[in-house]
């Protein structure tokens, strides 16, 4: 049953057609993400990751982009799932509103969705606790580090309690140390909230450190090259020096090398 799957993608293709261009960006993509799992997507640049991300999010793609095939999020079309508040987005840039405080930013979607004042306050205080951001309520984004800003944007995505978190290279701008810190945080959040997470990344190590399943995309044709199940226990900080962990990294690197040709 596709309904038990958080994401179900069946023979999805997309192409840019117009302005004299005719470019296939995705070809025959098939995969599923089961509820509550953590799945990463990795691939060389230009493999159509962004297009795939936008299609699953229910965001509009360029006018010239035509998609075929089936995408279901919780058994619904992405646009419907998005309207039903089942999708939370975390983008590459934190995209916080600079005039709002940490709390103010987290409550933005709640205000727009018409939650009552009381329930907004309750939800925001729960989020601050979950993300360990207590004491920072009144800070403005410009007073926070890049990692903290991204944490606030994760809080904003969790505010209306979506089942699915879609994350597009959220930690790409962070340095190695902060990135690892945020990796641990996102795993904690995932364990506590039991959300389904689809995580787009550039980093092989990050993909192995975080996910249960890594989907490797390829160029020419832009399709799925391999899917690797990562059979390691959490927290991964305990196994990150094991030979099994390195074997996964090596395996994915080899696949990626093949995929980039």
């Amino acid at each position, binding site marked *: 049953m596709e309904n038990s799957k958080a994401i179900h993608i069946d023979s999805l293709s997309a192409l840019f057609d117009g302005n004299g261009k005719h470019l296939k960006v995705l070809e025959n993509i098939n995969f599923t993400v089961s509820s509550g799992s953590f799945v990463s997507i990795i691939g060389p640049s230009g493999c159509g990751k962004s297009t795939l991300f936008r299609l699953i999010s229910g*965001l509009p793609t360029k006018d010239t982009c035509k998609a075929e095939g089936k995408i279901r999020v919780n058994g619904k079309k992405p646009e419907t799932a*998005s*309207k039903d508040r089942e999708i939370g987005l975390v983008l590459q840039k934190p995209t916080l*509103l600079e005039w709002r405080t940490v709390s103010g930013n987290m409550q933005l979607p709640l205000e727009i969705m018409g939650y009552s004042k009381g329930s907004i306050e309750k939800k925001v205080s729960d989020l601050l606790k979950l993300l360990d951001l207590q004491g920072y309520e009144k800070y403005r984004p410009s007073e926070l580090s890049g990692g903290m800003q991204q944490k606030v944007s994760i809080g904003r995505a969790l505010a209306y309690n979506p089942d699915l978190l879609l994350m597009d290279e959220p930690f790409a701008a962070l340095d190695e140390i902060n990135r690892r810190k945020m990796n641990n945080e996102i795993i904690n959040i995932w364990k506590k909230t039991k959300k389904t997470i689809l995580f787009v990344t550039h980093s092989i190590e990050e993909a192995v450190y975080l996910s249960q399943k890594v989907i490797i995309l390829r160029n020419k044709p832009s399709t799925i090259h391999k899917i690797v199940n990562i059979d390691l226990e959490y927290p991964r900080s305990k196994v990150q020096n094991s030979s099994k962990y390195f074997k996964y990294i090596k395996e994915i690197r080899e696949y990626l090398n093949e995929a980039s040709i």
Partner: protein
Amino acid sequence: MKRVFKTYKYVLLSVSSLILFIILWEIFLNIFHVSRIVLIKPSEILATCIRDFDILSKEMLYTVSEIIPGWFIGSLMGILCAVIMYRNEKLSKGFVTTSVLINAIPLIALTAIIGGIMGTNRDQKILLVSLIVFFPVFITTLSQLTSIDQGHKDLLLSYSAKPKDILFKVLLPKSLPALTNIVKVSCITAIFTAVTSEFFGGYGGIGIFILSKKGLYNLELVWAGIFFIAVFGTIFYFTVEFLQKKLVPWQES
């Protein structure tokens, strides 16, 4: 505390440089002989300001009663028109063309045209000032409201936000720094417009006062009038800047 000290230092620095400038001016005129037609001593100007304070402030207030309403109406209309039109590209483009056309008319000609239609009373000056202020405020607001970060756009879409929410929760607050800036700069444009238009006729005001005293070679009164305009302009500008800082506190850091 630190910030208070910083503001204090800033004020001290501005005031002391102004005083230094005036002292140098006074010394210069004491040493060299300069025709009164060119320049007169600041001490004389100041004495005139004190002696003729009543008439000077009366004339200045008349002009202020043209500047402030004109500036306010012009700014408000500029913002309102942009808010009404930003979602309709055809309408806003057409309107931009019209307002460019009006603003391309030299101020003198515009004064004459509007003077011909409605006379040279106070309302004419208010209309002129608001027309001149309207244009930059409208263009700035429009360009601010029509540009949005792709990330914000995507997020708002994923929240299924209504246009009203997008406007009030994102677009308007985002525009505030640029908007308050242009409104602040327009203070000076408003003063300039009001005084200049008075040179071409009217029933009162500091511009007319200066013009008539110049005709009588009453030069210390001309300078005193200019001094009053400068003082008012400074107060006006910094008051608006103060309000701007209250309204846009996040811009400081």
